[in-house]
């Protein structure tokens, strides 16, 4: 396949994945909305877990099946498309649920009640083309504009984001031997291609990414918004449709999380005796932890500042997010080029380029997560708890701190932990930018994975993937000891 064909193939695949993810996201969101609160929380968790499962784990687990499909490229493509779709559908659902909307559900319903007066659906949509003046009431009340101001914008933004993530996907494509522009580019770069040539190869991907990002940002910021959308009212979804969505959620969890985890655990169980040998990776694990912590701390700090900005400064913060949204591969190449400039060359082959790249990669997620946590945080309830901490009586002050931890602390810690995990599990930027003396463990494992699945490798994968959770447990334990 030529690079042009790779790009065309990736575009078509990303289009299909994005459309499928948005459609399934709509169904999942409606099904969850129709469930009682506790069940809804469980379903959200089940739905999001496949996205949070490290992509390398999924790719490693399914690579054995992919290699058996080597003579059936179409089936291999289908498997890859399915896995990416299962991983990215939660992103679409989350965007559909939380994307800021200009219109409340009540306002949308009020507009629907005017349906008969507006004429038929086709007549209503025709209003857009027939009336030239944007001030004309018929134009302002056209269903197309209403749709764009209500649910339509969230659909479009969800589509754009999922499309970008699917279009720039590299890790799984590489492990499943899928022809893709990202794999071609990465292999060429790893094979010693000159950086300028690599950047020329990446230019179409970069342009597509920038164009779509521009569209997404335009959709998000050109219309008035009324903030983060609250939980939707209970939908009247039929039992059969809800059962189908339930089946999808279970299947997604099984395929994208449980089965890969089982395959690794099963292999690790066979290779338990080799556990001491994984100590050889201690240096790489430590490097990954350091990079993950540094990038998470920087991104978190920048997101805290970004959330406080307004006006032009807010636009600068949004612009800082753009490199991260272009994908790890394009970003890593750009950072590599940047640190080969005369003024910055001294920092080349140091941890700085990788920390910068990981920070920029994590920044959009950090900002979105921080905004979500801020928007969902009950501000008045938090302040009511904070007032208690000013008490001269220790019982009241302690009670206030406990409530504050529940309302704010846990959410912030969860954001920080997620950022650390994303930084820790990054492969693409690490492979391109890690200093020669500090190779992150994920890159080392990725190289081993090309030689197939073995018990020893599964044990290493298990240990490597357990590290963030062990660290988190350690942090909680010491936190509890310190708090008494």
């Amino acid at each position, binding site marked *: 396949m030529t690079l042009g064909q790779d790009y065309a193939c990736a575009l078509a695949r990303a289009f299909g994945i994005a459309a499928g993810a948005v459609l399934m996201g709509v169904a999942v969101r409606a099904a969850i909305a129709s469930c009682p*609160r506790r069940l809804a929380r469980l379903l959200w968790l089940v739905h999001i877990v496949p996205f949070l499962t490290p992509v390398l784990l999924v790719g490693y687990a399914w690579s054995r099946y992919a290699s058996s499909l080597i003579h059936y490229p179409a089936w291999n493509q289908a498997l890859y498309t399915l896995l990416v779709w299962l991983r990215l559908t939660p992103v679409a659902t989350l965007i559909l649920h939380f994307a800021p909307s200009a219109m409340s559900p009540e306002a949308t319903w009020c507009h629907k009640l005017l349906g008969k007066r507006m004429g038929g659906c086709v007549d209503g949509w025709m209003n857009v083309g027939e009336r030239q003046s944007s001030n004309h009431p018929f134009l302002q009340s056209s269903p197309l504009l209403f749709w764009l101001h209500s649910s339509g914008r969230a659909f479009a933004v969800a589509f754009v984001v999922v499309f970008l993530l699917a279009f720039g996907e590299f890790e799984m494509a590489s492990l499943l031997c899928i022809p893709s522009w990202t794999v071609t580019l990465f292999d060429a770069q790893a094979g010693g291609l000159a950086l300028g040539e690599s950047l020329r190869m990446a230019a179409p991907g970069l342009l597509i990414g920038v164009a779509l990002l521009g569209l997404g940002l335009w959709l998000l910021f050109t219309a008035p918004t009324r903030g983060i959308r609250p939980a939707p009212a209970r939908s009247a979804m039929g039992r059969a449709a809800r059962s189908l969505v339930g089946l999808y959620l279970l299947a997604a969890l099984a395929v994208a999380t449980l089965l890969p985890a089982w395959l690794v655990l099963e292999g690790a169980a066979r290779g338990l005796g080799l556990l001491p040998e994984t100590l050889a990776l201690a240096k790489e694990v430590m490097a990954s932890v350091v990079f993950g912590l540094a990038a998470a701390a920087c991104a978190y700090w920048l997101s805290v500042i970004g959330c406080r900005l307004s006006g032009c400064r807010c636009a600068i913060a949004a612009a800082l997010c753009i490199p991260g949204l272009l994908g790890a591969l394009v970003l890593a190449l750009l950072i590599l080029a940047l640190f080969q400039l005369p003024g910055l060359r001294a920092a080349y082959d140091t941890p700085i380029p990788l920390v910068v790249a990981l920070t920029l990669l994590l920044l959009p997620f950090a900002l979105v997560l921080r905004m979500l946590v801020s928007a969902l945080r*009950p*501000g*008045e*309830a938090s*302040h*009511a*708890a904070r*007032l*208690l901490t*000013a*008490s*001269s*009586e220790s*019982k*009241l002050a302690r*009670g206030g701190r406990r*409530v504050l931890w*529940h*309302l704010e602390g846990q959410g912030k810690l969860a954001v920080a932990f997620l950022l650390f995990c994303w930084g820790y599990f990054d492969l693409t930027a690490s492979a391109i930018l890690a200093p020669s003396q500090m190779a992150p463990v994920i890159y080392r494992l990725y190289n081993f994975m090309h030689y197939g699945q073995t018990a020893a490798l599964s044990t290493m994968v298990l240990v490597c993937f357990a590290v963030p959770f062990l660290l988190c447990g350690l942090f909680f334990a010491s936190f509890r000891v310190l708090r008494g």
Partner: protein
Amino acid sequence: MSSPLWKLDNASLAGSGMPRLDGVSLEIQPGVTAVLGCSGAGKTSLLNLLVGYERPDEGNVVSQVPRNHALPVYWVPQGGGLWPHLTAEEHLRLVMSPKAERGGALSMLDSLDLVEKATSRPDELSAGERARLSVARALMADAAVLVMDEPFANVDLARIGRYWAVVRRRIAETGASLVFATHAPEAVLAEAERVVCLSEGRLLYEGTVADLYWRPRTREEADCLGESNWLSPDEARLWLGREEDAPRCFRPEQVEVAPADASSIVVQSSRFKGSVAEVEVLHEGVGKRRRFVHRPVADGLKAGMRVVLRVLVGEDGRCQ
């Protein structure tokens, strides 16, 4: 007068389009103070500054709240500010001083008709119940000052008086001061000693409730505490037969509209509204019309009836 609880010096809070608070300078005194204003006047913004929920974009807010209670300040925010993971009883237990009686929480819930909801979490309560729980939590916190933002919003009108009595009793027991926001003049007249009136983010009036009710300086001030008759000296002479040096306010209960066959004032229309009635009269001698509000004895005025207007009670509320 004892030292003020808060001093605001030219405090401003930016808003979208126009400021939410615009250069407000005032002192909040101990006792019961109402913050009065229509929707969007800046009541919530002022209270948010007092409790430190927001900081002024310009100016200063200096707290001088005494430290003689377990908490200096506690708050009933507009949205309730309840903790989603705690039951109603747990809300109260968490803020109670260790020295407080164990049965105090249930007793407080009972007095605000929430005892049956003691084990319910906020998402299982109605809007009115949430508002009452937020008040109950503040009352149980041993705070030197309670700041309540429209404390009984969404509560049945018929029960509000009983709940205010609970608040009154509690602050009398604990010696706490109370600052509350409301748009209801009745609540100000019944509960507050002092009042702060806001309009479009600006301070309109700060002083005693009695002064605002009986001696407002402008029609705008007069309107803060409900309907009134604002008359210039000429109008007072024409309609009431009184000599006044300056325009002044006559409250509905100060004005009597009584039938009088020989009068040149003729009722054009009359609307009975319960405790207040509205009457439109024509002065045949000068051909002028005017609307008056008064306290009716009954729905007795009819169009075409000749009447006389008299002032019944003076500025101090005593009968003349």
